[in-house]
């Protein structure tokens, strides 16, 4: 069955020439968009239209377009990654939109993620948090036999659930406090549940927490919006573990 065609849609996009420029919304009209298109394909069509008209195309982040790289962002109609659950923007399809609808496209609005251009933001802050403690020590030398490190299935599953984080920033973008706690929790949790993560366990949560505060992210108030927006459905239960790891380290101090 052929996909339906949206005869006309309106795309209201945030345009900003550079980080310091004052931005504004501009509305573009698009015709004959297939509902089978992905959201980013629609953006490509829009950009093609803009270029043909001699205008500056819209700058937006994208890379793998299969939901695993964490490059795409976009806050669409009041939802990070658009009005669908457990998907990144690149996995969002135009079938989620209706004929004649105005689609509002905004960049992540987080103080620590400054706009570079249009709807593209600088997410270096996440890299900095990761560098502060999101790593493990691995010794050089011979490879130890995998069977010597026993890990229960439950622990492995929970660590893997946390490790599914792609660092897209939807959690901070959707959080009313622009808090990076779900990201932080995922990065701490993926190691906290595994023996390999124990070497740095004492300093990891403390260092990453301090970096998050320093970069100007807000604090967590447990609204749970982040886990709903997260394309990988990472649970806020990991935030409890992060807090536990932090307080354990602090009390021992």
């Amino acid at each position: 069955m052929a996909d339906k065609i949206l005869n006309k849609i309106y795309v209201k996009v945030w345009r900003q020439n550079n980080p310091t420029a004052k931005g504004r919304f501009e509305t573009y009209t698009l015709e004959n968009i297939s509902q089978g298109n992905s959201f980013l394909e629609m953006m490509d069509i829009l950009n093609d239209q803009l270029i043909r008209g001699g205008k500056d195309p819209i700058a937006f982040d994208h890379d793998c377009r299969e939901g695993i790289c964490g490059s795409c962002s976009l806050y669409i109609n009041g939802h990070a990654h658009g009005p669908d659950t457990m998907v990144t923007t690149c996995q969002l399809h135009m079938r989620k939109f209706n004929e004649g609808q105005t689609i509002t496209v905004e960049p992540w609005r987080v103080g620590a993620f400054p706009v570079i251009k249009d709807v593209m933001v600088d997410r270096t802050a996440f890299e900095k948090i990761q560098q502060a403690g999101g790593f493990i020590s691995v010794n050089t030398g011979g490879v130890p036999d995998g069977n010597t490190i026993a890990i229960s299935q439950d622990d492995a599953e929970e660590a893997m659930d946390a490790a599914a984080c792609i660092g897209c920033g939807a959690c901070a973008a959707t959080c009313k406090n622009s808090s990076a706690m779900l990201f932080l929790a995922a990065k701490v949790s993926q190691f906290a549940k595994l023996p390999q993560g124990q070497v740095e366990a004492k300093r990891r949560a403390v260092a990453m927490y301090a970096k998050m505060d320093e970069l100007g992210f807000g604090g967590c108030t447990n609204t749970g919006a982040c886990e709903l927006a997260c394309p990988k459905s990472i649970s806020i239960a990991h935030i409890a573990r992060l807090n536990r790891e932090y307080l354990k380290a602090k009390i021992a101090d």
Partner: protein
Amino acid sequence: MSNFLSATIGRKVFMSLTGLFLILFLTLHLSLNLFLIFDDSGILFNQAANFMATNPMIKIMEPILALGFIIHIIWATWITLINMRARPQGYASGDQLLKWWAPSKNMFILGGMILVFLVLHIFNFWVKLKITGDPLLAKATGTAAEMHNTYALVSNLFINFPLYDLLYVIAGILVGLHITHGFWSAFQTIGLSNIKWMKRLKFLANLIGVIFAVGFSAIPIYFLLKF
């Protein structure tokens, strides 16, 4: 330690612990208040009020309780201001993910409204009991010991001023809503939660919220209907 106190998590631990302490206080408060419903003679309630006014342990707890409220309120304001700063520019399309009325999104507003009620509540009872006195307090009957007739003060307000009844019912509901988020959130903040316990704590939070909302609202409604 100094960086713990100024870190976002440190600030939140204060909110969490004072919040849980205030829930304990409200549990005691509600338990004693229910004497208003279960004993129309007012003797039990007067005895309870007298115990609360004279017991040395309670006297020690009174300033600690006040401190708990003050920390909870000041820290909430502080945290909210910092969190607002983290997003200099908001979304034109708003937030369509969580409903606008979700208690978790409105803890500061709910808390603010409860604070307004708290001031009124203190003027209604505490000020009259401790400072200014009131003619209604003078004639407690049915007990051997000398004590204030607190029951008369409370019943007079609820029977003769329906506007106050309405305010007290609203406040009861606000406190209940505040706790449906606050209770489980407090455990989450101090790390005492996981994927299994989060569900249980959320259930308990809703249960306690409903008990507080219904319990506190029932008292003015009872006086309004019965007398």
